[in-house]
């Protein structure tokens, strides 16, 4: 950690109180029953993520990887200015659909999460939820210097500096912002990585799940969601 004025030392002990509607409590129902409710307990989201097993033989796995690389479906989650740079890719001038890349509206249908710029703490929370709801195999691409080292938000009080502390990033595309040509080059490079079987971000996330959660909870103070939502 770099040197800073000790008069601005942060009070790290302080915790954010859980919101009242999130606390467990006993409720009287309209028909007279008394029930215990625990709003944060989600019975469908209790299992942590699992490592996605490889196919039984290399040639089959290579075939799967080829298929995955040739259909990158992007979750349309726009953060920061990179969301604007992605629009020209959809239109005939750059036409990313030639590479089998298309944009999907929901996490369930997509396998590529583009973090297209700076992430504030508030957005990071939504990005984590969106990432966890995607089905494996899934990939993360960080766009621009904001996701790499904070970029122009290097001294911001509410913006993360390294995306790979919180989500497993398979690929960074440098620039501020990267032009659509750079994005296309990045997609081609990502395809090479996937075809070589080296895009193991989602498995990394499953293996180091505790570490990732600790990093996420260190900055997101009002954690009011299940630990893993799928």
């Amino acid at each position, binding site marked *: 950690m770099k040197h800073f004025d000790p008069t601005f*030392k942060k009070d790290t002990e302080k915790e954010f109180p859980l919101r009242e509607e999130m606390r467990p409590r006993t409720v009287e129902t309209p028909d007279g029953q008394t029930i215990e409710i625990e709003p944060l307990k989600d019975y469908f989201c209790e299992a942590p993520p699992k490592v996605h097993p490889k196919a039984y033989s290399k040639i089959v796995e290579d075939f799967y990887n080829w298929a995955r690389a040739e259909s990158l479906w992007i979750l349309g989650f726009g953060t920061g200015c990179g969301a604007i740079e992605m629009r020209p890719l959809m239109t005939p001038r750059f036409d990313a659909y030639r590479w089998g890349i298309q944009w999907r509206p929901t996490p369930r249908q997509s396998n590529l999460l583009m973090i297209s710029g700076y992430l504030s703490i508030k957005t990071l929370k939504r990005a984590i939820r969106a990432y966890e709801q995607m089905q494996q195999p899934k990939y993360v691409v960080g766009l621009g210097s904001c996701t790499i*080292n*904070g970029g122009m938000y290097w001294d*911001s*009080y509410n*913006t993360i500096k390294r995306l790979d502390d919180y989500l497993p990033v398979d690929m960074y595309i440098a620039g501020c912002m990267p032009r659509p040509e750079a994005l296309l080059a990045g997609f081609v490079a990502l395809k090479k990585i996937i075809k070589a079987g080296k895009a193991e971000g989602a498995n990394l996330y499953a293996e180091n799940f505790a570490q990732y959660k600790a990093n996420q909870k260190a900055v997101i103070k009002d954690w009011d969601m299940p630990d893993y939502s799928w």
Partner: protein
Amino acid sequence: MMKDLIAKLKKHYKLTEPDYRRADLTFVTAQKDELRSLLIALRDIEGFTHLVLLTAVDWLEEGLFQLTYMLNNRAANRTLALRVMIPRANAVGDTIHDLWPTAETYQRELREMFGIDFPGSPRVNDEFILEGWTDMPPYRRDFDSLAYSLQTYRERPGRVTHDPREHMKKALYPDQKPEAAK
């Protein structure tokens, strides 16, 4: 027109010397206890019907917050900004959400970002933009954004800063010796 208005207001209210920024923009400082009646008079009699903004300035050295109420008279195309100084410690302002409903949002923002309380304003203690913020209000001048960032978010090593002048000199004229320090 603004001079006539200020002269008229000065008969009833304690105002400081006005600051005529432009022909259509005037700043003047008012007393805190007269603010409400002044705002009502401006809105209902003088035609300043639109609250353009309500914001704060942190005068750290003087120990004061300055609340700026900017009002606009659309028919005459004139803007009048009222400044009110309030003490910085346990800062409390008077809510004006019943005069202009938009003030509610401004007051929520001031509560979160400057820590100025407006008792009686709807939802004033709810979170506005920040989620789960535990430190001091970040727009206060004694909050150091860089120090907070260094303590909270991990840096990636390798980030360097160049003086643009020296960097371009080296890039364009690599043979030239650097200037001796004077």
